[in-house]
């Protein structure tokens, strides 16, 4: 039986094999050299070439796929992260697509695009909403805060700091939505808004002190496929209470947990 892992010696290769390997090696080295020296130059040149081809391409007049102007165009002016932006959009454009595709604010993420995951959560007029189910056309005159608008210059928002401190994410895809949601959620708690877990519904609205169960319930519209929930809850709890949350995990001690393994 041949063990391919035990075949390091090129002398055992046939001439053909050696030629292929040599060629591969050379082209790979060439490629790596080019990339390390002029990565951006090469990519930019490619893009420019593509753009040029596209620009010179004439669509036949009878083509059914001829590009058209925005269909059912609507004009919207909104205040995004403190800046007034005027947009002309196809009526179908959601707030999420307007942010990502028209304004270059790609922090808000498109997860499910059906209002089930919460990764597109942004804050509109002080309330967390799903930007994937909000038509941009309905946002005339509204104030939108996205993840890009939470920090003040280089100073991160306390919720952003806390997510980093407690490792409230793994892949990070749901994180902008989680953070926007959490920021608005703590404001809701301050205003005394109810949740499904509220006991005293008939009482007057007053600031709510949130248990971990309450945080989980109020954040249930934001899913995390990596399962960073315990750390997300810790991060939110620290911002909510202003006190540090003790870590509850510890490294496995040698010998102690052997039986369990």
């Amino acid at each position, binding site marked *: 039986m041949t063990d391919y892992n035990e075949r390091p010696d090129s002398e055992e290769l046939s001439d053909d094999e050696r030629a292929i390997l040599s060629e591969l090696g050379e082209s790979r080295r060439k490629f790596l050299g080019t990339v390390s020296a002029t990565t951006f130059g090469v990519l930019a040149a490619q893009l420019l070439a593509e753009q040029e081809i596209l620009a010179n391409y004439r669509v036949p007049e009878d083509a059914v796929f001829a590009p058209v102007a925005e269909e059912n165009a609507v004009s919207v002016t909104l205040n995004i992260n403190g800046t007034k932006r005027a947009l002309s959009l196809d009526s179908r454009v959601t707030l999420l697509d307007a942010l990502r595709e028209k304004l270059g604010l790609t922090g808000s993420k498109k997860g499910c695009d059906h209002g089930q995951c919460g990764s597109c959560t942004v804050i509109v007029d002080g309330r967390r909403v799903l930007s994937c*189910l909000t038509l941009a056309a309905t946002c005339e005159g509204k104030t939108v805060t996205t993840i890009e608008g939470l920090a003040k210059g280089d100073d991160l928002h306390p919720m952003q700091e806390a997510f980093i401190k407690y490792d409230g994410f793994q892949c990070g895809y749901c994180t902008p939505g989680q953070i926007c949601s959490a920021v608005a959620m703590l404001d809701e708690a301050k205003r005394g808004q109810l949740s499904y877990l509220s006991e005293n519904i008939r009482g007057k609205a007053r600031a709510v002190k949130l248990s971990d169960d309450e945080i989980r319930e109020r954040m249930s519209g934001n899913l995390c496929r990596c399962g960073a929930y315990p750390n997300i809850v810790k991060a939110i709890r620290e911002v909510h209470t202003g006190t540090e949350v003790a870590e509850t995990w510890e490294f496995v001690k040698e010998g102690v947990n052997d039986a369990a393994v």
Partner: protein
Amino acid sequence: MRPFKYSKATNAAGAAKAVAGNKNAKFLSGGTNILDLMKEDVARPDELVDINGIASSQIRSTPAGISVGALAKNTDTANHPLVRENYPLLSQAILAGASEQIRNMATNGGNVMQQVRCLYFYDTAVNCNRREPGSGCSAIVGLNRTYAILGWSEHCVAVNPSDMAVALAALDTKVNIQMADGKTRTIPFTELHRLPGDAPHDDKALAHGEMITSFEIPKNKFAANSYYVKVRDRASYSFALVSVAAALELNGKTITTARIALGGVANKPWRAFDAEKFLAGKAATKENFEKAAELELKSARPLEFNEYKIELSKRAIVRALEKAV
């Protein structure tokens, strides 16, 4: 998503007229359901009339009780002092549904008009009488664990997904409707949703172009003795397998009046009239609650995978009533 014309209405009569004038037009309020359906190509309107600018979002007390605007957001309704104090059942039911993001967007009118979440209704590759009348029901022989046990027909076995509607049904709500000809009309909330019969595609009492403007909830003595139970696959952010809105008016330990409605079991919020009638004048005991539940579920017919819902409904009724007391 297919292209559509977008316009903004400034008053209810104008909005109703605009939608009535185009059979492919639809109202747009919170958008949380209609946009989803449009992305899935299940709903195909060529015109959306945005009604968010219409002044129908007030929540105010009236001599008869409370008026809740159709365009008030779910969040604002659940947290309104008048609702919290006098109709906590409504607050509870609203808060049991969706997520805070969606409740911030969704309006009351849109909530009660939302479509079923039947998998086969959403899947345009399969038959569905609701989506394409006469094509057949795929759910009746499909994965129907979460489907109806009451009032279904061979044409449709889907359930109404709203929690809010279950509380509104229990609270003897009336619905004010703007008609396309400029007039208005009022119907009992229990008549807003219809059982599927042979026309599941037409399961609301509103004609095309008619729009809900407000809900009237009469005064009652249930505030201290009401409860909403929701049983679901996840602890939060999930539709009900079974839910129960229970409200009691008590004289000592005797039930003067009972109101019970079930969610997740039929194509409409299921008012448990038989159970209510049985409980009136009886002692508020577990034994009586169990008898009432038994009576109400007598007409239940399970599908292949949802027989569990019958026992679950009975127990949920008992639990809601016990919590209400």
